[in-house]
């Protein structure tokens, strides 16, 4: 098989990327620390109905920052992202159905 045909797409994405500097990683860690502090603050400060949506948004942002920057998904081949996101989407779908079947959303 002519591998050049099959690899073009991936190889284009897999060009050698410069990873961030140590200073950049420290900036990202600082952002993560600030978000974590904000998360913990919600335990002490009453924000009513906005609590759960706020926590979920902060959780997703932290997850994305670690995956994109520390796990290098931003810089690596899109193929890796596809495999990882497939696992996440499958897990969310399966367990959303699972929780629905067990009436989690209605009974809490």
């Amino acid at each position, binding site marked *: 098989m002519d*591998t050049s045909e*099959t*690899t073009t797409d*991936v*190889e284009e994405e*897999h060009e050698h990327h410069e*990873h961030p*500097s*140590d200073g950049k*990683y*420290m900036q*990202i*860690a600082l952002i*993560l*620390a600030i978000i*974590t502090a904000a*998360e*913990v603050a*919600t*335990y002490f400060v009453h924000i009513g109905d906005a*609590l*759960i949506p706020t*926590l*979920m948004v*902060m*959780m997703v942002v*932290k*997850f994305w920052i*670690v*995956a994109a*920057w*520390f*796990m*290098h998904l931003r810089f690596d*081949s899109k*193929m*890796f992202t596809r*495999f*990882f996101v*497939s*696992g*996440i989407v*499958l*897990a*969310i779908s*399966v*367990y959303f159905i*699972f*929780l629905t079947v*067990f009436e*989690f959303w209605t009974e*809490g």
Partner: protein
Amino acid sequence: MSEETTTGLSHNKLAMWVFLGSECLLFGALISTYLLYRNKFYDGPAPGDIFDIPFTSVSSFVLLMSSLTMVLALAAIQRGDIRNNRLWLLTTALLGAVFIGGQVYEFTTFIREGLGYTTSPFSSAFFTLTGFHGVHVSLGIVMLMSLLISSYRGKLTQKNSETVEIIGLYWHFVDVVWIIIFTVIYLVPNPTS
């Protein structure tokens, strides 16, 4: 550099990403089960009565910072800086050990306060979820120590930095799982007795 492959991607790295994708299903099952059972504490302690949020916040911060030291270890080996690679690998392993120490302390406290593994469906689901995560962190520490030993034997160089990258992926994954556990299990308001 990794070997030539038909996809142009490292098969080892691809395998790790596929493995991490499958791990989402494992932790998804454990988190969903916990959510279903968190109200079923019967006569035992309720989650809202027993969780120590300030303590767990510190543990979470420690694990989050270990992701920074892990990525610094990778950056060091990629530029051929063996000394800093060893320093950051050791720091990551130590931060992981501090997290595990915190978990052991938390579990011991819970058991002393009457929350055993079989006390209630809530306790079983809680210990299974956080215990599985703790086992993952412990395995990560073993892998980090193996990397350190390889490094001191002269087998870990810039040429095979991909090994550090793959173990780093596993370590960061353990961190992102804790990001979810910390929010969903600890910070979302819990029922009290």
